[in-house]
């Protein structure tokens, strides 16, 4: 019983950490979408026009998912989508790292700190968050084993 409670507590903390991280990531980008557009474009994966659309919707999606992971009605889908986003971010950072791009991550809005991006840190951070998502999804599936289409 004690072990179950400890596990549940850890998953709850993981859930709160994920929500906090995504809220903190979303708010500065919602406040300054133009700067975030440039950060997205700097990855040189999509052009500036498409970057503007990404900069408009992605921060709101992050905010909705951050809150959604705490709301029982939508928390499983929110967790799954956060997992997908984290996979995409890891792929994006790995791609930028391999191409030798020296750019700002833009993960939490415009980052000023040291020049150059520490890609290994960014990827490690997202892998840890992905592990949190795995724990959250596993607990949600165990607690609510009803088929998704019911």
């Amino acid at each position, binding site marked *: 019983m004690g072990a179950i409670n400890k596990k549940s507590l850890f998953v709850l903390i993981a859930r709160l950490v994920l929500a906090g991280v995504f809220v903190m990531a979303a708010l500065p980008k919602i406040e300054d979408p*133009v700067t975030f557009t440039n950060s997205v474009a700097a990855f040189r994966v999509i052009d*500036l026009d498409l970057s503007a659309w990404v900069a408009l*919707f992605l921060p709101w999606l992050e905010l909705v*998912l951050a809150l959604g992971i705490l709301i029982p009605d939508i928390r499983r889908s929110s967790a799954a989508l956060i997992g997908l986003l984290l996979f995409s971010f890891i792929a994006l950072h790995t791609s930028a790292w391999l191409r030798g791009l020296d750019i700002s991550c833009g993960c939490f809005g415009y980052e000023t700190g040291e*020049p150059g991006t520490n890609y290994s840190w960014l990827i490690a951070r997202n892998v840890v968050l992905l592990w949190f998502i795995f724990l959250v999804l596993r607990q949600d599936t165990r607690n609510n084993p009803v088929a*998704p289409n*019911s």
Partner: protein
Amino acid sequence: MPRFLREILTITALTILGAAFSLCSGLAPLPWAEPVLAPGEIRLIDARALDVLWVDARSKADFTAGHIPEAICLNDEHWETGVVALMSTWLMNPRTIIVYCGSESCATSKLIADRLRESLPNAEIYSLKGGWDAWVQ
């Protein structure tokens, strides 16, 4: 309706509402409108927050008359000497390079920035919106 689909639709609807709020409140510019910043441009307020290597793309006379502290003079006339000085400075301490010219309407900074992107493909290079005028204001 399958539960998963219902959840995804809820999340999508909330996201669209949020984006609509950004557009209606003026927080975000219309994505299909002319961008406030041209591709590769940066505002002075953002540039000031960075560790920057400034590049002055104006004429030597304008550079001598006044320039941003520690800026390197680099224009088409003195390209060879300027680019050598820039590269040696940048290689010692790689950082964001921002090129500026005289004013909002000048295009030299964008042209020099484009040339520099070819010479230094790994560098983050911008042109300063508003140029020298923005700095002296």
